[in-house]
């Protein structure tokens, strides 16, 4: 009874283990490191490539029509030319800019709108929740291609409109994720505590709920980036996306399709660019899912040989 519990002094408690630096975690996973290098390269090319190529992506040279990839014609002949003699390399670089300038704003818009609405709906529950979820259901059950075609017919198929359509059709994805997580968090103790102290719900959502949901949302966004990129290229391929003289990777595949038998490189190379970018984003998303989850992060700190093997105890492996 008389023993007083001594408050632990600062010297006794070991310092809390710091979460490992993210670039160290990235270095441990070779595949994720390669993926992030590829993505960085794509972003750099998209941002600054146009400064280097000048008007090369549009410059026609009919004498150089349908040249196969070779080392004989300088940097711009490296990946061959299309039927008008335009350099495929220069067009790939130009298209990287267009493709990312559509995909990134679309993902950001749907991420912000969807998450904000979802967190709000999930936190408050009740009528607000069910109305928001029904709206999401309606958007999801609508043939999104139909919306795209209609909007692009009514308004012109400009990059701005494509961003808008992609953003609207992807909002439900974030909305559902954010709602589910925030509905689960609203009854947690620390949220209750904040509410007891009279914190306005807007601030609770921003300071207490959002930080926990954010890693999941960012992972979903990385995956969705692939989906948006693929949709943009499909729309461009069908002729209702990016319009010439602008060029995107999907449009390049469409333009190269009729020369498939004679000049495979026009249609195949932009597809390779799409695949490399989307696969990298997927790999990075898978890595981010592990790295942002405190319960799973330790897997990445293990040496390669032992990683993951502990998920199923070794004695169970025959």
């Amino acid at each position: 009874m008389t023993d007083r519990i001594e408050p632990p002094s600062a010297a006794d408690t070991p310092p809390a283990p710091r979460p490992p630096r993210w670039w160290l975690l990235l270095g441990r996973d070779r595949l994720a490191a390669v993926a992030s290098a590829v993505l960085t390269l794509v972003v750099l090319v998209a941002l600054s490539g146009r400064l280097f190529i000048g008007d090369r992506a549009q410059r026609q040279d009919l004498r150089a029509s349908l040249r196969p990839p070779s080392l004989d014609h300088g940097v711009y002949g490296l990946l061959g030319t299309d039927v008008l003699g335009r350099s495929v390399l220069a067009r790939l670089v130009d298209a990287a800019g267009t493709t990312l300038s559509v995909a990134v704003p679309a993902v950001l818009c749907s991420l912000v709108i969807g998450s904000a609405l979802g967190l709000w709906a999930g936190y408050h529950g009740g009528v607000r929740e069910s109305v928001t979820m029904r709206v999401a259901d309606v958007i999801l059950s609508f043939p999104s291609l139909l919306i795209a075609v209609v909007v692009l017919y009514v308004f012109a198929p400009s990059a701005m409109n494509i961003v808008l359509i992609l953003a609207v059709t992807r909002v439900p994805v974030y909305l559902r994720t954010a709602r589910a997580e925030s509905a689960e968090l609203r009854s947690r103790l620390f949220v209750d505590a904040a509410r007891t102290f009279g914190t306005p719900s807007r601030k609770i959502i921003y300071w207490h709920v959002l930080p926990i949901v954010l890693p999941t949302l960012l992972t979903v966004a990385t995956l969705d980036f692939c989906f948006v990129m693929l949709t943009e290229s499909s729309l461009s391929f069908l002729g209702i996306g990016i319009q010439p003289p602008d060029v995107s990777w999907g449009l390049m595949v469409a333009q190269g399709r009729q020369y498939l038998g004679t000049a495979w490189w026009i249609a195949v190379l932009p597809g390779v660019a799409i695949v490399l970018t989307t696969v990298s984003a997927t790999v990075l998303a898978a890595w981010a899912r592990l790295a942002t989850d405190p319960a799973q992060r330790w897997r990445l700190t293990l040496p390669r040989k032992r990683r993951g093997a502990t998920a199923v105890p070794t004695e169970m492996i025959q």
Partner: protein
Amino acid sequence: MVPFLRKRVVSSAIPLLFVVLGVFFLARMTGNPVDLYLPLSATPEQRADFSAAQGFDDSVPVQLWHYLTGAVQLDFGTSLRTGQPAATMVLDAFPVTLQLAGVTMLLAISGALLVGSLAAYRPGSAIDRIAGLLSMTAASIPDFWFAIVGVLVFGVSLDLLPTSGTLGGPEVWILPVATLLIRPFGVLVQVVRGSMVGALSAPYVKIARSKGADARRVVFGHALRNAVTPVLTVAGDLTVALVNGAVIVETIFGWPGIGKLMIDSILQRDFAVLQAAVLLTAVTIFALNILVDVCHALLDPRVRQAVPA
């Protein structure tokens, strides 16, 4: 089970209604079909006659009334393009899409269950890493690109498979199904693997093992049943995407399915056919979602008891 079903049907009927109404208004926003179907030299009288004959003169509420009353009686009007009843055209096209979607999903689900379980059995093993990279790549390949590269390699260069059309033996199915298959397969392998890793480290699996159940029984008898719920949800969403129009595949390979019919109807302002097609796919998706939920309830007693709001 019955109250569960009733609630589920009511709550998904609302989106269905919105889709039916939405397509009516969206279609009319694409423009006036009169300009497309009559020559530029048509006189104003001819234009007026055409409009009146097709019912485009009526006010929008009247047109909507005709559409809704017709739909209830399963009469969707006639196609502007072909003069056939819209319902006939849609019912001719739908089985093609359904067959494609059915075969694709059957292969994708069974393949993914097998590969995903193998990968999850030893996380971090060579099989797991290969399956991981393979599935990520499969989920990220643009289908139109895969299709035309497939045509280039197998149709043109090797001359093994037909490049388009539906006539012929089983070989006409290979390229379209392969194109449709890659994305669902890749996505599903990842989902199966993820939820199997979780299930295989659960206590009931340890108990099953300690009681001496062999590996096949543990994986397929105990773990898979509990791991299959998220797989079902994702597979449902992927099937919805397929039913909603394998437009790209149907266009490239020349299959007369519902996706191609829809996009042609939009481009030709063939409102009657478009409305009928969207209504049919919306009802199918509605039924599909209910079916997925019923499967959930059958597999998981907790879902049966907790009636969703």
